[in-house]
């Protein structure tokens, strides 16, 4: 059964130096507040996993939390580059960043395999591209019935997955709706999981399009209203497009980023 507590407790208990950590949320419901708490607690040497590393991963990378990034698309959606990510890859600042690079289809299937208790997944993917040449976790596999050659990718099983959802009940059952991304798979693939929610309610009234993660499939729940900002939680908040645009200037400059980081670690800004 999921324990309900504070974000700080949950991150302290679940996220350790050197862990493989996935924060998921496909543009919608990104667990940004939890990412900031990881920065605040000064975690190091993390292998960060995420299909679409965007602002919160730019922040984690710039803050020096990450040793490695496993991903399929790293950018500021609708704006441009992630400059802290680029600075790490292009200049090794603040630390070199090892990359394990996939496509969306490959990453999604890696989570599916992880959630399914399988060591690998099969897809039609990467054919003809240069990705298999730079990523060791892409291999060919042959269909035992037709002889056809396809692609295999290994399961991803994070030490801890973090997602944001609209609601949980007091027993720790989690409900989310709108664009679902790969959140269910990320939670089920992980050894431990944390779900931040907009609110904890007495009862989860059914919502069209909603899925429920049973309490016994989640390790910890923390109530963090607005915990997805600058992304959004359908039914609770709107995407803060201005923040995404403003991040570009902060991210471009190491000093300005340093000021932002000082604010975060002192708990002033978000």
């Amino acid at each position, binding site marked *: 059964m999921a324990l309900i507590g504070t974000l700080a407790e949950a991150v302290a208990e679940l996220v350790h130096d050197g862990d493989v950590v996935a924060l998921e949320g*496909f*543009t*919608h419901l990104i667990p940004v507040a939890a990412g900031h708490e990881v920065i605040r607690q000064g975690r190091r040497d993390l292998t960060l996993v995420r*299909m*679409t590393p965007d602002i919160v991963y730019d922040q984690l990378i710039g803050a020096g939390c990450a040793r490695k990034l496993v*991903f*399929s*698309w*790293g*950018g500021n*959606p*609708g704006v441009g*580059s*992630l400059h802290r*990510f*680029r600075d790490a*890859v*292009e200049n090794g600042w603040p630390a070199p960043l090892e990359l394990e*690079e*996939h*496509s*969306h*289809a490959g990453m*999604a*299937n890696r*989570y*599916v395999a992880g959630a399914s208790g399988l060591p690998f997944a099969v*897809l*039609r*993917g*990467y*054919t*003809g*591209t*240069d*990705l298999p040449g*730079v990523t060791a976790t892409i291999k060919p596999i042959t269909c035992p019935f037709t002889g*056809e*050659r396809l692609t295999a990718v290994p399961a991803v099983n994070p030490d801890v997955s973090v997602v944001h959802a609209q609601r949980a009940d007091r027993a720790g059952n989690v409900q989310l709706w*709108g*664009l*679902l*991304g*790969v959140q*269910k*798979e990320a939670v089920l693939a992980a050894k431990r999981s944390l779900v931040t929610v907009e609110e904890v309610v007495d009862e989860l009234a059914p919502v069209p*399009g909603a899925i429920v993660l049973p309490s016994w499939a989640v390790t910890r729940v923390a109530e963090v209203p607005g915990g997805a900002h600058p*992304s*959004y939680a*359908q039914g609770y908040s*709107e*995407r803060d*497009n201005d923040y995404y645009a403003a991040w570009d200037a902060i991210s471009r400059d190491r000093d300005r980023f340093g000021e932002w980081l000082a604010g975060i670690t002192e708990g002033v800004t978000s």
Partner: protein
Amino acid sequence: MMSVAASRALVGGQRVFVGIGLPSTAANLARRTRAPDLVLIYESGALGSKPDRLPASIGDGVLAETADAVVSVPEVFNYWLQPGRVDVGFLGAAQLDRFGNINTTAIGGDYANPVVRLPGAGGAPEIAASCREVFVVVRQSRRSFVDRVDFVTSFGHGRGPGEREALGLPGRGPTLVVTDLGELRPDPVTRELVLTAVHPGVEVEQVRAATGWDLAVSPDLVVNPAPTHEELAALRALKEASR
């Protein structure tokens, strides 16, 4: 003009896998003008979205709220894209080569130490493989239109004819490239991109100067008609609703 030209390539009832930015603008414009039955599919899991404004990202809330169905990201790739249910994949590119191969990974240096690190693959490699055909929308310059991409993120026509077939790729690959200057299509035999149209007021030499290889020009080169009042009005309305 680029989004208007791209929107004209879409016809009613087609299922279109839409990336954000120019492809989304073009697809939404087409749905508002000559192809109201267009089915827009976003990799965020929205099938059949009918946004009344331009989504700010592929995960914009308006996509889920107006969709026929919302599915998980694994499902959109496995059940909907991979089996070939999508007619047109609409992609952008940072670098594009004479055979329509796309680079969105890294430019210059080598992979481990690039000069410019780009966002990466996203959904593009499998969109380029599995859609019946692929339209690329990209601004044209000598820097972006190169003889050979530094990194093949998404496979176009390789180095020429027969390569897609040899790899067993089901789709036809890039069949149209729309730029701010005109349109390129692969030569049916050599698979090399050839200039087939220019936008009004654009000279062929201007396009050749913005291309990093010796660009061939189709004998049937056409000049695209200027955007109509209807197209411009629809585009303006979409953009205004997005403020």
